[in-house]
């Protein structure tokens, strides 16, 4: 499913066109705006947050939204607005870092399998099939069980669980591209294998990879906060949305904002990411565009 078209032009013109196509869609622009807002909140959290995210003040515990605490406080008297801003950091970091990690592993494995062919490809793909049989969340839970809790382990766990899906997709794309006439021609001309991969194969499988990666980021964020919700992600008092929802769930009748604020923030970020990813897909691969 490699789209030659989007990446055939020179890099600068290609990027500009991609940008134009993205900005031409209302959906994608809205998604991008939402994601950018969260990125800015995460970047400038130290300046925007009125309180340190883990400052406990039991005298002010479980207060509703007020001038002093815009989004209220939780059961430890921590300022929810401040925790929300810092929580955006961990959510975005988990999303992008784990996808990058899974991408690195998956592209390497997929390229190897797709280019090699023969027995080593067969063996490699059976291993990937085996890995794919473990649902991402279960695999991540098993990883956390062995290696312990913490933000970096969440990233590693999710990254590992994404290797399989990326590897399978990259291999399928490589198989398609490698039999194209221009690759054969390059090979016959004696272009070294490394250059064939770098100049002819990778650019032509970049679009589908990017589309998949875009879709995965929101899954990664959902899984990451889910792990924390289950108590298998980051450790308290780290400001993390999943953890905040989990802590607020016991106080839902008394202080619905405790879980509501992080819950709605998470939903909004995921909607933004999904819309942007859909826009990216439509811009990169016109054939997939819906009516």
């Amino acid at each position: 499913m490699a789209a030659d078209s989007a990446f055939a032009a020179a890099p600068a013109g290609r990027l500009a066109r991609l940008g134009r196509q993205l900005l031409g869609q209302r959906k994608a622009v809205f998604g991008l705006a939402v994601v950018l807002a969260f990125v800015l909140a995460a970047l400038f959290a130290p300046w925007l947050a009125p309180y340190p995210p883990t400052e406990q003040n039991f005298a002010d515990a479980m207060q509703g939204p007020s001038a002093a605490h815009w989004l209220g406080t939780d059961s430890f008297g921590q300022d929810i607005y401040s925790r929300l801003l810092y929580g955006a950091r961990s959510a975005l970091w988990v999303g992008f870092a784990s996808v990058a990690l899974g991408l690195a592993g998956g592209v390497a494995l997929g390229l190897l399998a797709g280019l090699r062919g023969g027995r080593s490809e067969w063996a490699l793909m059976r291993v990937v099939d085996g890995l794919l049989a473990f649902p991402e969340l279960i695999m991540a839970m098993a990883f956390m069980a062995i290696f312990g809790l913490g933000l970096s382990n969440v990233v590693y766990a999710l990254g590992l669980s994404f290797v399989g899906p990326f590897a399978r997709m990259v291999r399928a794309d490589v198989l398609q591209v490698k039999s194209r006439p221009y690759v054969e021609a390059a090979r016959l001309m004696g272009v070294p294998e490394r250059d064939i991969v770098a100049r002819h194969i990778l650019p032509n499988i970049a679009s589908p990879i990017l589309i998949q990666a875009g879709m995965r980021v929101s899954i990664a964020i959902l899984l990451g906060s889910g792990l924390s919700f289950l108590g298998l992600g980051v450790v308290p008092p780290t400001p993390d949305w999943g953890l905040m929802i989990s802590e607020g769930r016991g106080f839902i009748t008394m202080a619905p904002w405790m879980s509501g604020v992080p819950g709605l923030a998470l939903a909004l970020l995921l909607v933004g990411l999904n819309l942007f990813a859909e826009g990216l897909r439509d811009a990169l691969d016109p054939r997939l565009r819906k009516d």
Partner: protein
Amino acid sequence: MGKKLLAALGQTLLVLLVVSVVSFGFLKLAPGDPVALMLGSDYSRESYDKLYADLGLDRPLPAQYLQWLGRFVQGDWGTSYVSHQDIFQQAVLQALPVTLALAALSLALALAVGIPLGVLAAVRRNSWLDMAASAVAVGGNAFPSFYLGVVLIWIFGVSLGWFPTMGFVAPWQDLGAGLWHLALPAVTLGAWYVGLIAAVTRSSLLEVLEQPYMAAARARGEPGWRVIWVHGMRNVLMPLVTVIGLQLGGMLRGAVMTEVVFTLPGLGMMITSAVQGREYIVVQAGIMITALLFIVVNFLVDQTYAVLDPRLRQHGR
């Protein structure tokens, strides 16, 4: 067909082999000393050595693997250190049916809402209904199921008191009470699917609507509902099955979260509390069983294609 099925089975067996090696590796990688865990705090050197040998831990890894696999296949999955319960019993006979019941009810609910929604959206294309359906699709897909569960508990469980907020009653023992207990969890898990099913139904029905045979059916004077639901839906089934198969991971992910939110004693709850309690042997059982479930359902989905699409049946390769 027979040969194809055999090849598919062979492929599946290989995957199972990889799965079993990974699961075995998990237990070997798990921190802590299983012998000390099983014996508790007070034990002698002799009893330690005896159990160590009984468990086969003095043998080389491949031999340990084979021993473990042999026992696993026979249903001898060990005993929980905490509850002293047989793990096979706990995982397969107690937890699995709960997860399956939850998944089946959620899927049924999602299909019952999603398909009509998708059909309406396709028939009244670009109307407010169509817009609403696609908004449901985007929102439902993004709304984290664990937070949705918390909200549903708050509104329908605590404030209105219509539904129980936790616990499980087996629907096969008491249908009414079972469904009543599963209602909120099924809505939580099913909501995620509704949008997806509606979107797939809509787009594949739109494609079919332009086909000449649909116009022909109309020209013959068949009633509108018949044209859509009989001639049209036939072609929606295939993409629907594909999506359901592809989203199995999402379903399991959602089921784990939903079970924990509603404290349903299913597989997700079992694995979560086992990880928290460092009961690696139970975690391993959970990993194995979800992987098996995944493989079986994928296999069934692949086989369903042949039933749904006659074109795939003819090639007897």
